[in-house]
């Protein structure tokens, strides 16, 4: 910890820019099944094509948070490696908020974009901490917004 430490300008320059280049994921029903089974959430909307076809969705949909798993490992890696905050080995995701606009459906081709919204420095018990806020948007193949996630992370 350095007294009077500030966030490097190179890190501040990333505000408003892509943290991870846009990525595209095709969501197939087998992947939805594996995620639902991992949660042990056996809702037929996720697992039973006949049941889902007769529902208002017309097809298999994904468990609520599956959309936010798309590109999440890449985001977490970028939080540790792409923001030049100096030799800070520790990082943590504190939490996130997601606004949902429509369900994620089997067969959707989802584009994930991720921008840095805010970077701020703060003294803490653990030393000088850099708080990072990212915003990710998830759009389907029709250009419709599925969800918007705002994530709070910290490096120290």
């Amino acid at each position, binding site marked *: 910890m350095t007294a009077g430490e500030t966030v490097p300008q190179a890190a501040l320059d990333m505000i408003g820019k892509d943290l991870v280049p846009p990525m595209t994921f095709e969501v197939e029903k087998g*992947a939805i099944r*594996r*995620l639902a*089974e*991992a*949660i*042990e*959430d056996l*809702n*037929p*909307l996720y697992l039973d094509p006949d*049941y889902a076809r007769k*529902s*208002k969705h017309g097809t298999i949909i994904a*468990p*609520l*948070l599956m959309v*936010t*798993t798309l590109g*999440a*490992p890449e985001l*977490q890696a970028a939080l540790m490696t792409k923001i030049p905050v100096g030799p800070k080995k520790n990082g943590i*995701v*504190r*939490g*996130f*908020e*997601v*606004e*949902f606009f429509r369900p994620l459906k089997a067969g959707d081709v989802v584009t994930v974009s991720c921008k840095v919204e805010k970077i701020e420095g703060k003294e803490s018990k653990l030393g000088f901490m850099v708080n990072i806020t990212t915003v990710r948007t998830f759009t389907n193949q029709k250009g419709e917004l599925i969800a918007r996630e705002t994530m709070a992370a910290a490096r120290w």
Partner: protein
Amino acid sequence: MVGKKLYYEDVQVGDELPRMVKHPTTRQLVKWAGASQDWNELHYDKDVAQKAGLPNVIVQGHLTSSFLAQLVTDWMGEDGFVKKFIVNWKRFHFPGEDIVCRGKVTAKRVEGNEHIVECDLWTENAQGEVYAPHKAIVVLPSKAQ
């Protein structure tokens, strides 16, 4: 909850969501790792976890949040829609321990055509200590519509 329908009018502030208990195993953590492609070793390699100062591997935060998402989507039924979901993690859950998933209705209101219900959601251990406080904002169908 297959075919369940919950109306806005049937929900009162203070109502508790039916509690759900999960008992994740290391095997379930590995299934989640594969399904989500999150291969952070803290969730399946005890040596890595212990080098990081943890007594054991830890349950993925995202899996814990998915348990709470299941709690609210089961409760609201197929005609409900989660408009917003807010995630916070305060403490680590460990495999082999019960995760008690709970929720409570904290507010309800009508905004335009939307009948909105707010819920606090949280996980706790068998002793009732809160680990992961979450919130959900849900749109429910109305009998008036």
